Every structure is written in structure tokens, then in C-alpha cells.
């Protein structure tokens, strides 16, 4: 019985991690109908930002290991992740649907920076390369090359894959490919409930995750911005006609989703203190499965999906064959989708012809 309860606790904490990431997937899907494959890499980025913040001397000297420092690190990472999300939306996804100046300059700037780094191996050449790249990009754009606005969902998906590859490989170059240890910014104490050992860290993480989810719910259902987000996810064109600045709302959606991903990154890094640039790949895939499981586009569904997935995985691994862990997620998915093709909370939509 004890083992079982222990496994249940394991499953819930695993599930809350998946749920946090799944929320971001489902929100972006809601407004853009896009499976944002780059989302899992924002999660990784958040963890790394937390790592750099926690190891930053200023933070260490001013705040030590107090709860204040943990909050600062968390918020800092969330804000930086939101920033990354906004950048991605602006320069990778938006050009596909509306005017987006400096897109070429942005990407050429990155290519230039890579070239600079390759040629000179120094910060100066990197900046010089970036500068040249941006210049060339601006010139070509002024001369008339503009992104093509197209309603292609598959095209957007490929762009998402491209951004994901970019973040993963870029991360390996910038952060280094070796795994790093995420410092313990929240001290951990082992608490005993009978013979059950529960780690206070796990409880704190679960608590924070729940708080974030509640805040998200408040945002989406009780604020004007939230209303606009829901409107955009219902029907983009109608929302535009109603006077909603859809570009801004989509940017906000990305920012919020990315902040959640960043928070998820830090929370997971607290529980499992190893971070590396590829840490988002598998959790991202599983979180996406969780989002679909719960009915993609549905926020409560994402949370439920995450929990179910976490529990199922832990049970399967603990009592069955651990080698099939990766496959469990998908087997469950297939089974549930066979019964409920729109996901658990998904509303079956009748298609009008």
C-alpha cells in the first residue's frame, strides 16, 4: 500500500510538470491553431535563465538562499521566457499572417552572428557579423522582398519545427551541450507521513503549479484581455472585426504561455536538478500528448491531461515494464482518442457544410 501511495505522489508531481507545459501548448493552439513545437525549448530556456540568475553573483550576495531570491529568480526567468516567446511570435509566426518589418534583418542578424563566431571566435566578430547581417537584411527588405502572407497551417508548423531546431542547436552552442546542475534555491526537507517520504520541494512545486494555473484561469475568464484571448481563439477574423487588436492579443498569449513554460522549466529543474539544452524534447512531446488528451485548446483539459499522463506513466513504470515508458504516453493517447476523438474535455464540433 505504501509503495502504491508513494507512486501516486510521484505520479502527481510528474503530472503537474507536464500540465504546466501543456498549458502553454494549449493556449497557443487555441489562438493560432498552431502546434508550437518551439514551446518545449522555451521551457528549456526558462530553466537556463533560472540557472544563470541563481548563479549570478549579484543575486547571490544580495539575496542568498532566502525565499525572496527564489521568487526573484522565478519571476526573472518567467519574464525572460515571455520575452523569448514574444520574439519568436514576432519574427517567426507573425510574418505568416500580417506585416512584420525587420523579419529578414532579424534572421540575417542571427546568421551573421553565427558566421562571426565561426570566423573569429570572439565576441567582437560575433557582434560585427550580426551587424552586417542586420544591415543586409534591412537592405534586401527595403528593396522589396517581403514575407508572403499565407493561410498555410502546415507551413506554420514547419516554421515551428525550424524554430525548435534553432533553439535546441543554438542552445547547445550558446549554453554548452553538457548538463548543468541547477542550484537548490528552495531548501528541501524530507517530511515523513508514516513511512511515506515526501519531499517538501515536491509540495512547494505542486503548490506553485496550482497557483499558476489558478492565476491563468483568472486571467482567461475574468479579465478583458482574457476575454479577448478567448474571442481570438474562437474566430480570429470576427475578433478583428470587433475591434480587437489581434496581433497584440496573440503576442500576449505567447508571452503568457511562454512565461508558464519558463516557470515549468524552473520547477522541474528544482525537482530534477539537471538541465541541458535538449531537456525539453521528451517532456515537450509528452506535454503535447497531455494537451491533446485533454482536448487541445482547452485549459482545464490540459491540466487534467497532464495529471492523467503523469500518473499513468509512473504506474506503468513502477508496476510494469519501465522500458516502455515512452510508449505509454502514446498508447494511452490512442486509447482515449479512439473513445473520445476530440479529447477528454474537447467539445465535439459539428461541421457545417
Amino acid at each position, binding site marked *: 500500500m505504501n*509503495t502504491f501511495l*508513494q*507512486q501516486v505522489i*510521484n505520479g502527481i508531481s*510528474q503530472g503537474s510538470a507536464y500540465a504546466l507545459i501543456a498549458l502553454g501548448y494549449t493556449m497557443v493552439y487555441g489562438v493560432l491553431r498552431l502546434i508550437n513545437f518551439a514551446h518545449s525549448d522555451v521551457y528549456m530556456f526558462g530553466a537556463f535563465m533560472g540557472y544563470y540568475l541563481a548563479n549570478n553573483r549579484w543575486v547571490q550576495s544580495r539575496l542568498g538562499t532566502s525565499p525572496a531570491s527564489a521568487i526573484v529568480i522565478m519571476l526573472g526567468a518567467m519574464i525572460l521566457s515571455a520575452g523569448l516567446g514574444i520574439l519568436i511570435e514576432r519574427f517567426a509566426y507573425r510574418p505568416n499572417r500580417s506585416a512584420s518589418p525587420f523579419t*529578414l534583418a532579424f534572421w*540575417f542578424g542571427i*546568421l*551573421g552572428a*553565427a*558566421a562571426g563566431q*565561426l*570566423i573569429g571566435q570572439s565576441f567582437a566578430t560575433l557582434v560585427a*557579423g550580426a551587424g*552586417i*547581417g542586420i544591415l*543586409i537584411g534591412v537592405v*534586401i527588405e527595403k*528593396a*522589396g*522582398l517581403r514575407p508572403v502572407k499565407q493561410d498555410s497551417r502546415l507551413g506554420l508548423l514547419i516554421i515551428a519545427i525550424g524554430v525548435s531546431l534553432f533553439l535546441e*542547436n543554438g542552445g*547547445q552552442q550558446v549554453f554548452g*551541450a*553538457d*548538463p*548543468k*546542475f541547477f542550484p537548490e534555491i528552495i531548501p528541501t526537507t*524530507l517530511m515523513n507521513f508514516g513511512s511515506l*517520504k515526501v*519531499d517538501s520541494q515536491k509540495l512547494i512545486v505542486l503548490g506553485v503549479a496550482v497557483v499558476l494555473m489558478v492565476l491563468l484561469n483568472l486571467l482567461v475568464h475574468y479579465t478583458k484581455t482574457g476575454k479577448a484571448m478567448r474571442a481570438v481563439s474562437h474566430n480570429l477574423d470576427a475578433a478583428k472585426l470587433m475591434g480587437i487588436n489581434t496581433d497584440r492579443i496573440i503576442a500576449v498569449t505567447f508571452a503568457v504561455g511562454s512565461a508558464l513554460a519558463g516557470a515549468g522549466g524552473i520547477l*522541474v529543474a528544482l525537482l*530534477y*536538478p*539537471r538541465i*541541458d539544452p*535538449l*531537456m525539453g*524534447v*521528451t517532456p515537450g512531446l509528452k506535454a503535447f500528448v497531455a494537451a491533446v488528451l485533454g482536448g487541445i485548446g482547452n485549459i482545464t483539459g490540459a491540466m487534467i491531461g497532464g495529471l492523467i499522463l503523469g500518473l499513468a*506513466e*509512473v*504506474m506503468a*513504470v*513502477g*508496476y510494469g515494464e*519501465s*522500458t516502455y*515508458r*515512452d510508449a505509454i504516453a502514446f498508447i494511452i493517447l490512442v486509447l482515449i482518442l479512439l473513445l473520445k476523438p476530440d479529447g477528454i474535455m474537447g467539445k465535439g464540433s459539428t461541421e457545417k457544410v
Partner: protein
Amino acid sequence: MTHKLRQLVLCLLGIAAVLVMTSCSPKASEGTEIVVGVYGSLTGTDATFGTSSRNGVEMAMDEVNKAGGVLGKQIHVIVEDDQSKPEEAQTVATKLISKDHVVALLGEVASSRSLFAAPVAQQNGIPMISPASTNVKVTQVGDYIFRVCFIDPFQGLVMAKFATKTLKLKNVAILRDIKNDYSVGLADVFIENFKKMGGNIVADKSYSAGDIDFSAQLTSIKSSNPQAIFVPGYYTEVGLIARQTKKLGINATLMGGDGWDSPSLIGIGGEALNGSYFSNHYSVQDPSPAIQKFVGDYKARFNEIPDGNAALSYDAAHILVESMRKANTTDAAKLRDAIAQTTDYPGVTGKITIDKDRNSVKPAVVLQVKDGKLSYVETITP
């Protein structure tokens, strides 16, 4: 110009600009240089292993070049990345051999990728020295394939011996990485030997490389009450496994193989690793001047302590150069013979002798993690 034509021209200009900006790779000047190929996983899931081995080779070759090169020529190293993908290993091996005309190949760390590249080397008659592939099959591909590390059958025996003779253990659980042939192979050999020596395997669980949560497997292992858990995986997961073991209140000793070896191991595992043991190729603490110089030089250049892969690659590179000197040529067949005759080469990873199966006969050391540092326990000879 019409709009579409203008777009096309600008597009092409943009591409041209990009290509001009970003194409730059120094070309080897053949004739005055000896070209050696290094392939490894510089990106992808095993990026740290490839980077370590590349560093080891580069440091070794720089030393050789500074001392005047070999056979009157400087060594030019070409490094290729196989992205941790098996079929890429074959592609880059082919490229290095047929396009860059390397005289020898150094690589790979992962046996599965070495197995893809070895047939290419063998078919083309180019010697290949693997620094750290421990699967038996690698050198069986052909007589041009060598390795400077011990093989899995030996390493599994080492830890089984240590567990029974030194630690006097009877009940051990296994936690292996199912995605990793090294881990699976080592686990199987350990089990075989441990049972032969009278031990008992109480549980056999597995995880996948990349996993971060092992509580399910560990909780299950806990219920079988082992005295020790053998975890023959890579340091990337071992650190976390150690932490979670302690958090779940499992008091078993942790043991492992050379996959644990990395400067990041203790960083990730922390105090949870204290009291655990693993077999390795060498000990950083070994007071021998050669090893200390190697560690010092590596640290100065790459800003981290060298791990097993770096040390083995360093040795492999030097053995290659030594063999060139002995054979007095870079002719493939003669070079192969010279490598095969390597006897008692004083490497940083121990005295290396290449046996008739083209594997290395050398002792293994058992290290213990004590107070956050690695400390030498004993040496086990074959």
C-alpha cells in the same frame, strides 16, 4: 522588372550573401601534412562525449605538432560531427576517408555508432582506433579496427569482483539504461559474473537515457531490499538517480561503470553520491607525473577536468602517432600492423597493450565518491 522577377533576384542575392558570409573552412594542405580524421557526437544527445574526445585528440596532436610533428610533417586534424546519429557516423566516416583522405580514423565513443563507421574503415583499409567503445562487436568488424579501452566483459567482471570480494555483497539490484547498448551490455555481464560468484540479483529495472524521474523504478527496487544498486549508465542520469535514491530513503550503495566518469557527475549528484563506487580507466588523483601533467594541461586549455573519454582519446591519438613513428610510414597496412603491436604503451589511462583481438589489455581502477571528491580505492587487473 516585374514584381516576381525582382523578388526572385533579391532572394538569390540574399542566399548568395548568406553563403558568402558563412562559408569558411580552412583547407588542409596535403603533402606537407598528415591528415587524421576524428568523428564523434559534437551535437545531439551525446554531445558531451564527442566534445571530450575531440578535445583529447586536439590536445594530443597539438603536443605532437609543437614537438616537431611526426615523420617530418605536421598533423592536421579534421573533426566531423555525427550528431549522435548512427547513420551519420557512417556518412562522416565515408567523407573523412574518401573525400579528406585521412590516414586513420579516431572515434567513436558510443559502440553503436562505432559499429556503423567501422565497416567503412575496414572496407577501405584505413585503421580506426576507438577511444571508448566497449562493445565486443566493434573490433570484430575487421583487422583494421582497434580500441584503447577495455571491453564490457572485462568491466562487468571488475565490478562483480569488487562487489563480492571487497564489499562482500550478496543482494544487488540492477538499474540499467535500456536505450544504451553500453549499459545493457555491462549490466548483463555484471549479472552473469555476480551470480557465478554466488551473488543474488533481487531486482532488474530499467530507464531510458534522457529520463529525469526514476522514482517509479526506485520505489519498486526499494521493496526488494537490495544492499546495493548497480547503475551502469551515463553520468547524465546517474546524478539524478543518486539524489532520488536518497530522497526515497534507500540506503543501498550505488555502483557503476566508466559511464559515470565526468566532471559534471558530482555537480549533479551532490552529496547523494557519497559512498558510491564505479570502475574507470584512470584516476585523476593518480600522483604519477604524466597523469598530473595531462590533467593540468587539459584544465588550463579547456577549463574543466578531463573525463575518461578525453583521456582515452588523448591516449588513442598518441598511440596512433607512436605507431606512425614505429612503422616509419602512414601507409595503411603497415600502420595497422604497428598499432597491432602496441605493447605497454604508457598512457594516462594505464599501460596499454593491444591484444590479438585488437582490444586493450589494461587494468581498471575502482573509484569511490568521498566527501564530494573522487578517491581511488583499488586496481583490478585482468
